[in-house]
């Protein structure tokens, strides 16, 4: 998967026709194969742009930043990224008319060793669901499958699961990088920083990590699009996707809802209900 040429062409066209003010894309780090996001402002910077299977980051996170706000933005979205974009649109965080979206029919991105990322092999929606222009060949419909890690952990005993997550929460250093990298975390002041919660949950402790990560994952339940920005940002390499994918599997299996962000205008499972929702767990 290398769409560098197409991306550069489209970006050039957009800048020449003055349809956008800035373009959010990827460039190489300069010292290895990995890539970092880049925001370019004119034609002269276009040669920086690159897109291949190392273009891991979900760029929609940049839509909440100062340098893109109120500007006309060109943007590259893969399948997962487009779903977070859909949610941002639904939740009135960005305006569609200010965006030019290049949708990618994504073949999956690779990790440092060049292996296809595990979540990309499970991806249900590789093709962008929101786009102005599509790049790549689109895919056939795919079936939902429960995340392999979640399945594996779920098959373990309660005690094993608990011990596993104790080490996870112990390792967390509460740096909040996960939150900052998440395109769907845009609150003016996060609940876990608000006085009411800081008052009681203590500082950098396992307990506070439990509180923060649980609250965070429940705020993303039914919304997380599995882009894994949080995991790539986490300095402690915590398996944060486990929490999100667990919620996703419960929601998908019990509520017959769409996957997060697939349908425009769909806010996620927590903001609607059905009379037929499971009731058997309630006495």
């Amino acid at each position: 998967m290398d769409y560098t040429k197409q991306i550069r062409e489209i970006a050039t066209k957009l800048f020449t026709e003055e349809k956008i003010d800035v373009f959010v894309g990827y460039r190489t780090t300069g010292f290895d194969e990995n890539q970092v996001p880049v925001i370019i402002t004119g034609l002269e910077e276009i040669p920086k742009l690159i897109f291949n299977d190392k273009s891991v980051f979900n760029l929609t996170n940049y839509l909440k930043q100062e340098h893109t706000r109120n500007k006309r933005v060109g943007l590259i979205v893969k399948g997962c990224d487009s779903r977070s974009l859909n949610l941002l649109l639904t939740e009135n965080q960005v305006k569609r008319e200010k965006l030019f979206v290049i949708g990618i029919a994504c073949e999956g991105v690779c990790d440092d060793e060049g292996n296809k990322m595990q979540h990309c092999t499970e991806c249900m929606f590789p093709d962008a669901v929101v786009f102005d222009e599509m790049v790549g060949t689109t895919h056939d419909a795919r079936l939902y499958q429960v995340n392999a890690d979640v399945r594996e952990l779920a098959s373990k005993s309660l005690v094993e699961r608990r011990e596993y997550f104790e080490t996870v929460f112990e390792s967390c250093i509460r740096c909040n990088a996960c939150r900052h990298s998440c395109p769907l975390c845009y609150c003016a002041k996060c609940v876990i920083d608000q006085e009411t919660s800081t008052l009681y949950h203590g500082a950098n402790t396992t307990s506070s990590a439990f509180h923060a990560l649980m609250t965070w994952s429940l705020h993303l339940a039914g919304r997380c699009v599995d882009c894994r920005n949080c995991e790539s940002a986490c300095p402690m390499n915590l398996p944060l996707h486990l929490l999100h994918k667990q919620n996703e599997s419960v929601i998908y299996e019990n509520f017959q809802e769409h996957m997060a962000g697939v349908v425009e205008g769909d806010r996620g499972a927590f903001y609607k209900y059905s009379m037929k929702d499971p009731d058997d767990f309630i006495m």
Partner: protein
Amino acid sequence: MARVGVFVCFCGANIADYVDVPMVVEETKKIREVKFAIEYKYMCSDPGQQLIREAIVQHRLTSIVVAACSPRMHEKTFRKALSDAGMNPYLLEVANIREHSSWVHQKDKKAATEKAADLVRMAVAKSIANEQLFEISVPVTKRALVIGGGIAGIQAALDIADARIPVVLVEKSPSIGGKMAQLDETFPTLDCSQCILTPKMVDVASHPYIELIPYSEVIELEGFVGNYKARIKKKASYVNFATCTGCGACWQKCPVKVPNEYNMGIDKRKAIYTPFPQAVPNKPVIDAAYCTMLLKGKCGICAKVCQVGAIDFKMQEEIIEREIGAVVVATGYDLWDPKPYEEYGVGRFKDIITSLEFERMVSANGPTNGLPVRPSDGKIPKNVVFIKCIGSRDEAKGIEYCSKICCMYTTKHTILLHHKVHDSHAYVFYMDIRAAGKGYEEFVKKAQVDTAATYLRGRVSKIYKKEDKLIVRGEDSQIGQVVEVVADLVVLATAVIPPKDNPELARMLGISYDKYGYLSEAHPKLRPVETAKAGIFLAGCTQAPKDIPDTVAQASACAAKVCGLFAGDTMKKDPMISTVNTEFCSGCQNCVQVCPYGAIVTEEVPMGHGSKEMRTVARINEGVCQGCGSCVAVCRSMAISLAGFTDHQIINEIVSI
């Protein structure tokens, strides 16, 4: 620093026998914020309340905890005590140590005491986060709008107006009266519908507190409870009602004939018409769809014959506005079109008619002089088959629900048929006979004996024609066989359905409707006349199928609700409602999505202080919010807080145990 006063009640022996009250007081005194704690025999008694009032002043208390019975019992009493002492009543918290401790742990005094102490500690913790709240008072425009002039609207308007509250009654057709005016006799007493309805119609027209606006529709409603503004479109009637004397010369001379809706199209009316002789107001209107003067500019006979010059072909529709405080919606019902019953040959066989058509035929002022006739050849039918549940209880073709009135009116029709055509015979195909109502079962039983009608329990599967008769094939499930009845006339008891513009009306009013289009009440059992939107009430079949007695009862209930709403100059409202902290609001509008009352709207605020850039935030209409807290829990930014149940208060309770 908060200064909390705690008052623990013995409740005679009710609490004291099972909870060591002095011990609870001792425990409570250990809490840093508690500056005063005392026990007393009956806190709710006058001396008990006096204790609170004195302590507030003496100890400069900032919040009060009363440990006694359930807050559902005496919260109001104690709030009043606080008010009397000059303290904000919402600084009170009640610890429920009777229902939740002493009464349910009677065998373990130690545990009950520990629990009581915990409950008090939680209440103290919560009260520390209590804020002063002020009762919301909303000014009220004391005028009611009634939409729909059928029996429901008439009754509601009369009852409200009798309480000397002005009413605006808007009816979309030229006359009030509704469906009831089309009926001949009414079950179960067989008294004449016109005879009991027309006096009420006249009352409406002459009532000093009722403004009747016929031939008009409400097109817009804005505002909230007590403060609505309605825009009403007065359709062009082309007749100046102020000068028209209702002499009738115009419609007698009018040459254009049009199918008469009042008589279900069985006969004709004129292009200028009063819907029926007893119409209120008894003033004609011109049907613009047929009048040749309006269509082609020719004729104008009515204008020539009118002695007072009331005809005005240049009349335009007019929009008027009324300020009102409450709305009663009484838009009635429609009848289901049986066209999907193609296996019956509906539409192909002329001698299949609907019940309302039959009703008009047998009506004394009807188009056939009160006799049922076959539309195909005008002969008097001898064998008449009545089929019930046409569209009702039929998921495939019609609707799932029971229309409630068809069993009764079909029974009435068998009687009317028997009265009018003595040698006739009625066959009734039915699924069940549902005769729940005062005198209803007796009525059905008597009718079955008197008319000797044949009741066949089963569905009709087909109707086909043999010569000039209709062969009705159906199942008689009681003998388990297919039967065929040779009929002269078939009468279909078509289902009651909501008016087709109900959804549009509901959207305009901002209330909800169900999957059929009936307007939804706030609670199916306990709030059957209110809607989820405060100040809007429902009467009659617009909410669900009903017979006349139920409709009238509901209309009067609406009137009572309206009168209650208008009892004071302002409406008092509990201040325990949600508010948005716009600083934290991210504008995601999840709250708008989940609010069951539509109380949340959005507004634009500057991005920062003095900034010209705007951002969207949520705003809660305090007149509409009912304080459920749905919005609070879905607000990820925690920008919304519910007064009385803030996050701070609840977390305080959780962590203080």
